[in-house]
């Protein structure tokens, strides 16, 4: 498993596209939107920062799905998946080996974007343990979703299109772009079915309300449940993915 984890991590570090989606674009969005809304609306600056920095962090954490889809489809079409399946490495270890680097990347992404928020906008952080727990749960759900998509999607384009729907659709409906209170009632109800909403609620409870891990248990539960369902789908679809792999 370690061999697969190290290999995947090494490949991801060399992937310039991943750097763009994971760090550069989110920072551009954060700076851009804080400048636009901060300058013209006269909104409370702390609330604005605590809406935009965690909001865009959550949204862009789901973009890891693109990298996961590309990595899996490339392996499937190059024959590497079948080749690895011919080694004694158990399926679950291969799966974990591919998955762990992406979880680490999302955690680094969250640390970098929150660090940027603290350094540039004096964003408060609140209870560190609760923040870490929400971040781990967010990484679990976003990468879990990516793993499911990666084994289900037939083509890279299909995977990327569905990622856009999940990342952007979830961001819009989950209140990442604007507080859910500003949205119509029906949209507020829909938001509660989305992991994006629960991740942001968790972060805001910790950062704005000074909540601890007990205050965000509902967020943690929903995120972990979503992640577990996604991983369950990915594992059950894996034999089909293996059948489609070139060898």
């Amino acid at each position, binding site marked *: 498993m370690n*061999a697969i984890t190290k290999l995947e991590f090494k490949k991801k570090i060399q992937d310039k596209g991943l750097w763009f989606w994971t760090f550069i674009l989110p920072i551009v969005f954060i700076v851009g939107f804080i400048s636009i809304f901060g300058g013209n609306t006269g909104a409370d600056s702390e609330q604005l920062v605590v809406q935009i920095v965690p909001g865009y962090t959550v949204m862009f954490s789901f973009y890891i799905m693109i990298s996961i889809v590309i990595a899996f489809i490339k392996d499937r079409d190059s*024959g590497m998946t079948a080749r690895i399946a*011919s080694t*004694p490495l158990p399926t679950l270890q291969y799966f974990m080996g591919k998955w762990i680097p992406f979880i680490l990347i999302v955690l680094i992404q969250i640390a970098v974007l929150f660090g940027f928020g603290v350094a540039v906008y004096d964003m408060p952080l609140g209870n560190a343990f609760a923040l870490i727990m929400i971040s781990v749960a967010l990484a679990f759900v976003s990468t879990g979703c990516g793993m499911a998509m990666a084994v289900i999607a037939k083509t890279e384009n299909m995977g990327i299109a569905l990622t856009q729907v999940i990342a952007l659709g979830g961001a819009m409906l989950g209140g990442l772009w604007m507080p859910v209170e500003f949205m119509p009632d029906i949209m507020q109800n829909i938001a509660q079915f989305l992991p994006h909403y629960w991740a942001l609620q968790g972060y805001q409870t910790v950062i704005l309300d000074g909540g601890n891990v007990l205050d965000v248990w509902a967020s943690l539960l929903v995120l972990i449940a979503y992640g577990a369902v996604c991983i369950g789908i990915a594992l059950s679809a894996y034999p089909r993915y293996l059948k489609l*792999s070139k060898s």
Partner: protein
Amino acid sequence: MIDIRDVSKSYGSIKALQHADLHIEKGSCFGLVGPNGAGKSTLMKILVGILEEFGGTVEIGGKPVHQYRRDIKRQIGYVPQDICLEETLTARDNLLLFGQLYGLSGKGLNEQISEVLTLIGLEKREKSIVSTFSGGMKRRLNIGCALLHAPEIIILDEPTVGVDPQSRRAIFELIHELKAEGKTIVYSSHYMEEVEQLCDSIGFIDQGMVVEHGTMKEVFEKHRHSSIFIEGDQVTEEVLAPYGELMERENGYVITSIDPLATLQKVALALHSQALQPTRLELSQTKLEGIFFELTGTQLRDKG
């Protein structure tokens, strides 16, 4: 060593393998041949453990693959048709990856990597990035990745596709070395002359069924129909039809016969009596390709 009994595998309504039976002796080099889509790859995927669900039984070294999958995978080195290498890594790093996947580590793995690099002739390029390699070098490295764990059985799926003659020769030498070491080799190829040169036993698969198998000697003896090749502008099918089983080949015709000399004489007389002048009229020896066409036909298999 390898016992395949009544093995069947379907993909939906497509029957990829139908009641296949084969036995491969320990230390032999077994050629697996058949047209595209015949079921060779499916059988290889079953042998190497990529396909886990199938009908029938496969035993390797007396152990059923269903029960001893991980143990058996350690005994097999699989060289897939596609080059499965990490292009951004060096040759040594690729070998390191596959060595680790087979549970090797430390000094033992490093020594094994150096040995394999020498065996595949890439010892001077061990630190080069694979994307800078020629097709032949990649093919050799692809084989090297399957040899690191010193497997008893080596399964090669068309290992010489798209390589230059020098690399092909190097691959042949490597296979000869493995044979000399007593390894059991399963070799799939579309190049009949390769199979004829390397293998001592053979299995023909067509439409999911094993249509012939045995030692190379047995198969040749069974299908030894000497044939006559006739070429010439004026020579037509109608003229030759009465003298034996006729097949169109290249620019002429092949007549297979159990008494080729007598047939040759009759054909020569018939052509002479009709004042027809062939440009070629010769006895030809049985070749593996001829047996392949005899068993699988000459019709294209990609016409649906």
